[in-house]
Structure formats: structure tokens, C-alpha cells
């Protein structure tokens, strides 16, 4: 059953308590419930269904995103798009689905002593792909915002392909990021969570896991606070869950902060947070693009994913709805309004930096701020600046090859690119916090897995190094970023890890 709040204080004693209902939490809930365990899930976000998804940015972002769409690094230099709902990020992501790349698993084996191989994970990915209806997009089903990337890359001889998406009977409305209005997107709310509920799991929405009580090597309880729907404000009602096993699955920012709030600060908790930091350019075409309609993300190029000269990056599209576009577009006043007036003819193309693969990289850090919420810092480095500039130039080249009229950078003082000769200006433009727009929609790391307790928070089976009935099962355990959109990797890893959780639950 899915409970929305509670009008009384509760004490529950299930086999397993899961904090968070995104892909990691949903998968564990499904696997464990179906194996006969009693499961309680605490989710700070609300439970929302298609009837509530009105395709309006003004409604969707405050309702379905962390901090009401307001999450960012402490200095506001990176805007953080992260879901907050029953189903977590799967409710609002753009449906792009990839298995963890083989070379990433190989890097983890070599650098972190992890046992994961493509062969070990294959059956888990196959099951996930079947359950979520993941299938490859046909070129003819891409929208112009994506097709320009495909066509431009082909003209340049660069690697490019359509992506796979977790949808069934998709109308390609373009509103995945605001909650699918027709239940085409196979979010956790429509798949693994109902599976869990049908097997007896109890999900408590609008309930934030505040703290894990623990002693020695045992977690004793999870304390949850019920919230007024859509807010961070506590109702005063609480739940005390006393399970045999605790699974933390709040995602790469909320999971480390829950551990830190609970005094579980041994190891690099909150360190090595990876974001796939995103830079974007707007490409203006003479014809209509209408990037607000159509599958938002259906093409990707990994041509520059493994660069020798610096961090790799990959290229995808972002949907072009007015609010999100206006935040990213540079400048203010008349120049901004003039660009916004051309919204139907703009392509939004993004380059996502693949962070975490250089030994000198620290990534971001999550700490606890006043009031108990997360504070995220992610200092920019020269390695990032080099990658950002390379990413911007690659995007510009794609659209120049494809005949765009003008390509505009998102620097504070934007650069207008109309020919190859203009690209050098990208190298000259000043970079720095809030000198150009940077986003993230993929949060990873912060509770990294590994065999060395000094360098990791959980062991290779995702069990906490110190507290033996505590697991972390979400994107926070990734030792690096992935170089692909992370949802399917989280599902697959959680499916694999569910056997370890089940053993611990007896």
C-alpha cells in the first residue's frame, strides 16, 4: 500500500526499511518483497499520478524536483535537476536508458577492486529492459532538436546513434521532465513499486528519513518525519522503523547527508560526488525546430567520450520549454527577450563532462548544512574548463555542419558563432563560477563502493563497512560517473545487490 502521510505516530518492525524510492530503492523493494520479506519504504517526495501531470513547468518543478526545482551547488554555479517523488528521478527523467559501459566496469575492477563484470550484470539488465520496455529509438521517431545532432555528427563523420528509452505506447509529447501525462514512461511508480506493493510492501510518501539510529555494528532504527505535502515542513508526526536491515537509497546527494546526519561519517562520506557537469549551446535555425515537442532525448554522440587530451564528454539534446530555456539563456532584458522570442527555432544541445576518471579529480562534496539538509560544493578546475570548452566547440561544429544560422553560447557575455572562425572565441571567453551556465541532471557518488574502507563507504556488495546490516543501493555508490545516463545502471546494480540484502535480511 502507498500511504500519503500519517495522522499519528507510527512504530513499524519490518524485515527491511528502505529510505528512498528511486530506481535503487524501488528495485530492492520489489526484489525483497517478492522474496517474502516485509518491506517499508520511506519517501520524502509525494505520490503523484498522471492525472496530476499538467505539463506546466510552474507546477512540475516545485512539485517533482528537489528543493522545488531550486537545488544548486552552494555558490549557484551548477543548477541541479533532481527528482523528488515516489519513484524518485524515474518520474521526471528524460527516459534515456543505457547499460553501464564495459570500460567503466573494467575501470572499477582495476581501481576499486569491484567484482562487477558485464557478464555478471547482463541478466539484471535484461530483466530491467524487459520490465521497463526499454527499446531503441528509430531515427524517424526523433524530433528536430535531436535529429540535428544526428545529422550534424554524420556530416562530420563522428560517432552518433539513437538512444534507447523506457517507454510503452509513447505519444512523444515532450513532457517527460514534468511527469508523463499518459503513463507511457515506465517509471518506478508504474513498475517496480507496484510490484513491491502487490507483494505486501508498505510505502510511506511525504516521509523524510531523518536519521539512522545505530550502535556498534548494528543499525537499530530509522526515524522518519512526515512532511506537509510538497514542502520540507514537518507535520510533527513521526515513524520509527525497527528493521533487520536498513537500505539507504536516497540518491547521490540525499544518501550521504542521511549518513552524515546519523553520525555515520567514517570513510569518504559525501566525497567524490560526480555530476556529469553540463554545458549547453543554443543553435538557431531558419526552420522551426519546436524542441518543446517530441521525445526530449533520442540521440547521443559518444565520439569524445574517451579523449586523451582531457576529460571525456558526450553530447545529447535537452528539451526546450520556456522556463528551463530562459534560465539557461544568457543575459537579461532586451537581448534575452529577443532570443526567447525565437524559441521555436532553437536547438538546445548539451555536452556532459565524464567526471571521476582522473586520479587527481575530487569532484563534489556533500555536507550537512544548517537545518540538516544537504550542502553541495563542486569547485571548477582547469580540467573541467578544458572539457567545457571542447564540448562547446564540438556542439558548435555539429550545428555549423548542419546549417544552423547562429549558435549562441551561454556565457555571461554570450558568443555568437556563425562560422568555424568564430570557434576560437570560445577559448578566449572567461570561465568561472556563474560566468556561464552549468547544469547537472545526473548525480552520482558520495558513498562510493570499494574494498578499502579508507577510500569507500560501502564494500563491493554495497554493505556499509562499519554497520553490517546497513546497505547503500543507489547512484551514490558509483566510484566514478558513468559516461552515460545513469538510471538503468542503478536499476541493474540494485537488482544484483538485492541478493546480498536478502541474505542479510535472513
Amino acid at each position: 500500500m502507498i500511504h500519503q502521510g500519517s495522522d499519528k505516530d507510527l512504530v513499524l518492525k519490518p524485515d527491511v526499511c528502505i529510505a528512498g524510492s528511486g530506481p535503487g530503492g524501488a528495485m530492492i523493494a520489489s526484489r525483497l518483497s517478492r522474496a517474502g520479506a516485509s518491506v517499508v519504504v520511506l519517501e520524502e517526495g509525494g505520490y503523484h499520478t498522471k492525472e496530476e501531470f499538467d505539463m506546466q513547468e510552474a507546477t512540475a518543478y516545485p512539485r517533482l524536483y528537489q528543493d522545488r526545482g531550486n537545488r544548486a551547488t552552494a555558490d549557484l554555479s551548477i543548477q541541479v535537476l533532481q527528482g523528488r517523488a515516489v519513484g524518485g528521478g524515474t518520474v521526471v527523467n528524460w527516459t534515456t536508458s543505457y547499460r553501464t559501459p564495459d570500460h567503466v566496469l573494467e575501470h572499477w575492477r582495476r581501481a576499486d577492486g569491484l567484482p562487477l563484470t558485464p557478464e555478471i550484470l547482463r541478466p539484471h539488465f535484461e530483466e530491467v529492459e524487459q520490465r521497463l520496455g526499454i527499446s531503441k529509438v528509430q531515427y524517424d521517431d526523433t524530433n528536430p532538436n535531436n535529429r540535428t545532432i544526428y545529422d550534424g555528427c554524420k556530416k562530420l563523420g563522428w560517432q552518433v546513434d539513437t538512444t534507447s528509452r523506457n517507454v510503452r505506447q509513447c505519444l512523444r509529447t515532450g513532457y517527460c521532465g514534468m511527469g508523463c501525462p499518459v503513463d507511457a514512461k515506465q517509471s518506478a511508480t508504474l513498475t517496480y513499486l507496484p510490484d513491491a506493493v502487490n507483494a505486501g510492501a508498505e510505502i510511506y510518501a511525504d516521509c523524510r528519513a531523518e536519521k539512522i539510529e545505530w550502535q556498534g555494528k548494528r543499525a537499530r532504527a530509522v526515524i522518519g518525519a512526515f512532511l506537509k505535502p510538497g514542502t520540507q515542513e514537518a507535520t510533527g508526526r513521526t515513524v520509527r522503523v525497527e528493521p533487520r536491515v536498513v537500505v539507504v537509497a536516497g540518491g547521490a546527494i540525499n544518501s550521504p547527508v542521511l549518513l552524515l546526519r546519523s553520525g555515520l561519517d567514517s570513510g569518504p562520506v559525501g566525497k567524490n560526488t560526480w555530476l556529469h557537469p553540463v554545458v549547453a549551446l543554443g543553435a538557431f535555425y531558419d526552420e522551426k525546430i519546436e524542441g518543446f515537442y517530441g521525445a526530449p532525448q533520442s540521440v547521443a554522440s559518444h565520439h569524445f567520450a574517451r579523449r586523451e587530451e582531457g576529460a571525456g564528454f558526450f553530447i545529447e539534446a535537452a528539451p526546450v520549454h520556456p522556463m528551463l530555456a530562459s534560465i539557461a539563456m544568457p543575459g537579461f532584458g532586451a537581448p534575452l527577450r529577443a532570443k526567447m522570442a525565437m524559441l521555436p527555432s532553437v536547438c538546445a544541445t548539451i555536452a556532459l563532462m565524464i567526471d571521476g576518471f582522473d586520479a587527481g579529480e575530487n569532484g563534489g562534496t556533500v555536507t550537512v548544512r544548517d537545518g540538516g539538509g544537504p550542502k553541495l560544493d563542486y569547485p571548477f578546475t582547469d580540467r573541467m574548463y578544458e572539457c567545457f570548452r571542447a564540448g562547446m566547440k564540438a556542439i558548435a561544429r555539429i550545428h555549423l555542419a548542419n546549417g544552423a544560422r547562429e549558435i549562441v553560447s551561454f556565457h555571461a557575455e554570450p558568443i555568437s558563432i556563425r562560422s568555424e572562425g568564430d570557434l576560437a572565441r570560445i577559448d578566449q571567453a572567461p570561465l568561472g563560477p556563474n560566468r556561464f551556465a552549468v547544469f547537472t541532471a545526473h548525480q552520482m557518488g558520495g558513498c562510493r563502493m570499494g574494498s578499502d574502507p579508507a577510500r569507500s563507504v560501502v564494500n563491493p556488495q554495497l554493505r556499509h563497512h562499519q554497520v553490517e546490516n546497513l546497505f547503500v543501493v543507489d547512484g551514490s555508490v558509483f566510484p566514478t560517473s558513468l559516461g552515460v545516463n545513469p538510471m538503468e545502471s542503478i536499476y541493474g546494480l540494485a537488482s544484483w545487490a538485492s541478493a546480498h540484502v536478502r541474505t542479510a535480511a535472513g
Partner: protein
Amino acid sequence: MTGSRRGLLKKTLAGAALLATAGAVPVALRRTKLREIPGGRTLHFFTPAEYSIWAAVADRILAEEKPSGAPTASQLDIAGRADIFLAPLPDADRKDLKQLLALFDNALFSVLRGGPPRTFTSMSDEEQDAHIRSWQTSRLAIQRTGYQAMKRLCCALYFSAPETYAAVGYPGPPYDLVRSVLGVRR
């Protein structure tokens, strides 16, 4: 879309210096040019002075070169919408944002940064644009952060309002398509 954050002003050296500057200004030079609050309604986050500063900022952030027929920031009462949006902010963030607004409208600080000896709310349109631009491109990270906080929230509140869709050529969500398909699938 964002508010000020994390005790940022008080936790940085530059921020502390800026706040000291703001506090040292004679009261007369701190006086904000007040605006009328539509309908005289109760404010939840802003003081009347802060509301007036935000309204003036929104007017310039969202200014058009010449009127297109789209609603103005004032017509949509972007400051009033910001007041509602910001009301649930945690205490630390509230304090931060209020300090930011006080600094932004500070005449002495304007002078120190090479601007006119007036509060932002008393400046001409051209002076206000130059003032905003000086924050946008400042060498001080704290000012760029402040600019982003104001710009993002003004834009988010304005461009997410259906009344502005026509001005950007956005037809809006495809409700008919969704309704027809849901009807068939039922």
C-alpha cells in the same frame, strides 16, 4: 530558479566586507523607492522595501526593447509571485537573500563600484541595466551569484506563466492529444 543560499554572503571574505559596507551607509542613502503592492495584499517573505527592489529588478531583467504586447513583469506581479515562492525558504536562506537585496539597492555600494550615488530603485532604466550588468560580470563571485539568483527566479516565474507563452512562440502543452489518447486507452 533559485534563492540565495547557505549563509554565502557572511561566509566569504568579500561577502563580509560587502555587508559591512551596507551597514555603514547613512540611512538616507539606503532608502528604497517604494512601490505600491497590488491589491494591498499581505507579503509572506519580502518587506515592502524588498518587494519594491525585486519588482524593479524584474522590470529590467524582463524588459523588452519595445513593447510586443506580452505582459510586463509588473503586470504579472513577478515580485508578488517571488514573495509566494520564497516564503517556505529555510531561515538561513531567507537571511541571505534579504542581505543580498539590501546590498543590491545600496547607494554607497553603487558608488564604490563606479555607479551613480543612488539606490537601485531610484536609478534610471539605463543606470539600472548598467548596475545589473556590473553584478552579472563582476570579478567578485558573490555578485555574480547574486545576479544569478535574481535572474533565474525572475525568468522562471515569468516564462512559466501561460500568459507569456505566445510571446515566445510556444503553443503550450498538447492537451487535446493527451485527452484523446487517454479517452481511447480507458
